[in-house]
């Protein structure tokens, strides 16, 4: 369980978080929404100790993150997977190297174990088919092609999936997703949402998802937290969010829905002459 208690964080004169308190239960998906610049990504980075709060406490499984030394932080992070907004894959490495870099750098040299980890997680995120659905040779060929690709050879959606697969290496207890569907088309966004749901249920992980996408909220969330100007403006279930009379919440939902509708109602492309 993650407990955030009265956390403040500023960058120079800008007060990003102003007394945020919340609890994230185990085994559920908590979605954090809010406008750009309201401190969603900062909150996620505070939880994993990539940033330090100015005041307040953050506790993971009963241990204070803000008091951890470097060794304790690294130990805690081995149980946390983090999917970065732009996937943050290492450009010079192949997909396989990206996935097992952490294990390799911590001394794991057992090739069969590393290969198994790569294979399992690429299957988990749907980048490789279920091994049972293909012949052994067919699967090995598909694996070789994908595992040896560089991130620059992948599409945006595939990069995000590789980012998710990397976060799942080592079977973490928590997986954090920082805007996993940003910049993706609606179909790929839906695939990523389905993936987040599947992984939460299948692997029994605790997920925290940051998103602007209200449709992702309805699809993924057990609980929704809305940040507005550095404070928690809403904390409840997706249904409560939908039914909330709060004008700020309603404006956020309507504006997003209008953007999606506008996309859907875009004028048709004229036929070729």
């Amino acid at each position: 369980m993650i407990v955030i208690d009265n956390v403040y964080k500023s960058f120079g004169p800008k007060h990003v978080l102003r007394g945020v308190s919340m609890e994230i239960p185990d085994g559920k998906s908590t979605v954090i929404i809010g406008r750009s610049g309201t401190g969603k990504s900062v909150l996620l980075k505070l939880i994993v100790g990539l940033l330090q709060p100015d005041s307040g406490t953050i506790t993971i499984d009963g241990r204070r993150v803000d008091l951890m030394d470097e060794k304790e932080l690294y130990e805690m992070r081995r149980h946390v997977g983090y999917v970065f907004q732009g996937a943050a894959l290492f450009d010079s490495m192949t997909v396989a190297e990206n996935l097992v870099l952490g294990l390799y750098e911590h001394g794991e040299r057992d090739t069969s174990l590393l290969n198994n980890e790569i294979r399992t997680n690429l299957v988990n995120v749907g980048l490789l088919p279920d091994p049972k659905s293909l012949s052994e040779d067919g699967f090995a060929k598909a694996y070789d092609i994908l595992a040896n690709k560089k991130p620059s050879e992948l599409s945006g959606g595939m990069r995000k999936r590789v980012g998710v697969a990397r976060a799942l290496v080592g079977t973490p207890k928590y997986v954090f997703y920082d805007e996993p569907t940003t910049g993706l088309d609606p179909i790929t966004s839906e695939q990523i949402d389905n993936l987040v749901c599947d992984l939460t249920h299948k692997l029994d992980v605790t997920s925290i998802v940051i998103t602007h996408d209200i449709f992702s909220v309805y699809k993924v969330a057990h609980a929704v937290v809305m940040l507005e100007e550095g404070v928690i403006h809403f904390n409840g279930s997706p249904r409560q969010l939908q039914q909330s009379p709060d004008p700020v919440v309603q404006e956020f939902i309507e504006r997003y829905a209008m953007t999606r509708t506008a996309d859907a109602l875009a004028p048709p492309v004229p036929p070729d002459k």
Partner: protein
Amino acid sequence: MIGNIFAAVGRGVMGFFAELGRIVLLLIAVFRYVPSAFRSRRLVLEQMSVIGVSSLPLVLLVGSFTGAIAALQATNLFAKFNLLALARPFVGGSIATVVFTELSPVLTALVIAGRVGGSIAAQIGTMKVSEQIDALEMMAIHPDRYLAMPRVLAAMTMMPILIIFSNLVAILGAFFLVILKFNFTSVDYFISVRNFFSVTEILTGLLKSLTFGMATALIGCYVGFRTDGGAEGVGQSTVRSFTLSSAAILVLDAIFGYVL
């Protein structure tokens, strides 16, 4: 008005020392991870190849012209005062001294600062703005160990090796120039070199180059780690790394000149 000037100067001085302090802290962090260099030998060897092997053609080019130009200036000066015949036994030795102790280490270091320092800052800066550094942290891999230590260690190792090559081609460049332009014989030249240069001069040059290499890589890493603001920030970091490294090389050279 005067108060504002004092405040601005004070802020500048404090900023300088704060930055210097952070660079020293990075240096300490890098040395803390040196014992793990054998475990990370793949990373160190990769960087040795990038910093050393890939820079060699440029270093050889700069070295040969450095020697030739040093010889041209020295012999022209003696010729201007009709002292060339008198100076003939000393020309080779004086060129060797100036090349080994000053020109070769400093000019090579400046070239490496542009080529390698800028590239280190750009590479780490890009990793910083695209959250790859955070990704390393999330894998419990310390960026100082994974990124800074191999680069600093490789630069410290490869710079003296590059300087040895630079010295060799500089002496040869000077040799060809004095033979072709001033009708020296090879015996004149090499006897002069042998008689008047000392091994200490070469060692001084190598010690300098080791320090210059460390400063260049360290500043490149430091600037890279502090990059923000996307592509524009990466561009600024590249320039900043070269500027700071060049300044550091010249300041260190002055300190060496004073102390040694």
